[in-house]
């Protein structure tokens, strides 16, 4: 098995994660995500108390300008359940599962006229400093098809959300992502990956379950902000975390 085809996390839609990570800004990242997953729209929103230093709320969206304007003029942010609950919730949620107040129902009806999508899904994001944001994606697909799509790609979308969050923190605070500490096991798994071993082989070498090996590798990929194991290997070598085989 070659690098990058190991396991579910590396088999599909990685070009999407790559495009999001390669995007020059959060603004372009939301468009990249929309395009890659053929979403109707994508919105990224940093929790207000986190962006208190800046005057404007930090929102990057692919919504049409007319809808954004209408949303602001109507003061919808105060009644939008996706925003109100999104920052309080921890688990991702489907908009169709929200209990709507009459005002929120009006908002959704109004939104329909601006082609923002008929259904949506929101992923809460949090980092080590407990800074929060939400990533919302919308679609016009039939509800059942959409739910199946989310079921398949929820993990990747969460990863995309966290990758965009890192970009947003950079744009807001100029803070470069500092690579967190990798554990002994994570480095071991990555070293074997660098030597061309796949997860089943590494699990035999290290006497760990395959699932544990994949968990370590996913953790490494997240910490190094990489979309594939090959990229993680290259970055770890650059950073002298592992040595070339």
């Amino acid at each position, binding site marked *: 098995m070659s690098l990058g085809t190991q396991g579910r996390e590396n088999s599909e839609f990685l070009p999407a994660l790559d495009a999001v990570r390669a995007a020059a800004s959060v603004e372009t990242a939301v468009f990249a995500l929309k395009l890659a997953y053929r979403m109707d729209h994508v919105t990224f929103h940093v929790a207000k108390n986190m962006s208190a230093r800046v005057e404007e709320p930090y929102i990057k969206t692919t919504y049409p300008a007319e809808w954004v304007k209408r949303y602001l003029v109507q003061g919808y942010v105060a009644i939008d359940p996706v925003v109100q609950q999104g920052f309080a919730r*921890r688990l*991702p949620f489907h908009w169709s599962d929200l209990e709507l107040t009459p005002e929120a129902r009006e908002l959704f009806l109004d939104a329909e006229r601006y082609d923002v999508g008929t259904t949506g899904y929101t992923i809460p994001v*949090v*980092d080590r400093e407990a800074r929060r944001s939400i990533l919302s994606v919308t679609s016009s697909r039939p509800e059942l098809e959409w739910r199946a799509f989310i079921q398949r790609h929820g993990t990747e979308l969460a990863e995309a959300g966290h990758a965009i969050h890192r970009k947003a923190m950079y744009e807001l605070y100029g803070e470069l992502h500092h690579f*967190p500490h990798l*554990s*002994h096991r994570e480095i071991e798994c990555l070293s074997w990956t660098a030597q061309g071993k796949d997860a089943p082989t590494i699990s035999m070498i290290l006497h760990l379950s395959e699932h544990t090996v994949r968990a370590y590798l996913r953790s490494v990929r997240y910490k190094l902000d990489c979309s594939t194991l090959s990229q993680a290997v290259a970055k770890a070598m650059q950073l002298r975390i592992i040595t070339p085989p």
Partner: protein
Amino acid sequence: MFTAIEPHQYDKWSGILDQIYRLRKKTFHDALKWDVPVDGDHERDAYDDLGPVYLTWHNPEGTKLYGTMRLMPTTGPTLLYDVFSNTFPDAAALSAPGIWEATRTCVHPGNLKEDFPHVPTWKAFGLIMLASAECGLRSGIHTIVSNYEPPLKRVYDRAGAIGEELGRSDGYGRYPVCCGAFEVSERVVHQMREKLGVRGPVFNTPEIPQILAA
């Protein structure tokens, strides 16, 4: 019913939350002798202030608690990372959007005996684990990292959970404390339902599966 109580529902389930902190005090402070912060009858730590998800098993009226588990994403601040980094260096460092941490898992033997006399303690732990796996599966979670006392691992094995111990330490209380990674997948959920004798989903299902009440 098994539900995930999130911050926007804390008010609605305030009675259950109160019972959670009481049960945790009795379990971890009184019985297991862990060094945990106690405030009167409550056990609460800094992570409870960060708005975790409380996976709970309680009656539909929200007046009686059967068991609970605290879930937090490992991309954010976690107890295992902050407190157990030296004890479980490998497990505590795991961090990714699909990896969540479960801590403070416990059951209420008295309430279970009253309402579910046919559900033994091991099964109650298993059902909470199953509910967390079902919840995880629909939320993009593929791994749950958890700390537990050694006897609980046998309980989880018996319930069909698939987990691997990644570290173990003495000196926290009466038992050593272990840390392990549990797989969240379709195959785990199926296997757990089979071992626990549950026919359908337990998480977010208003009706308690018939088998439990039998």
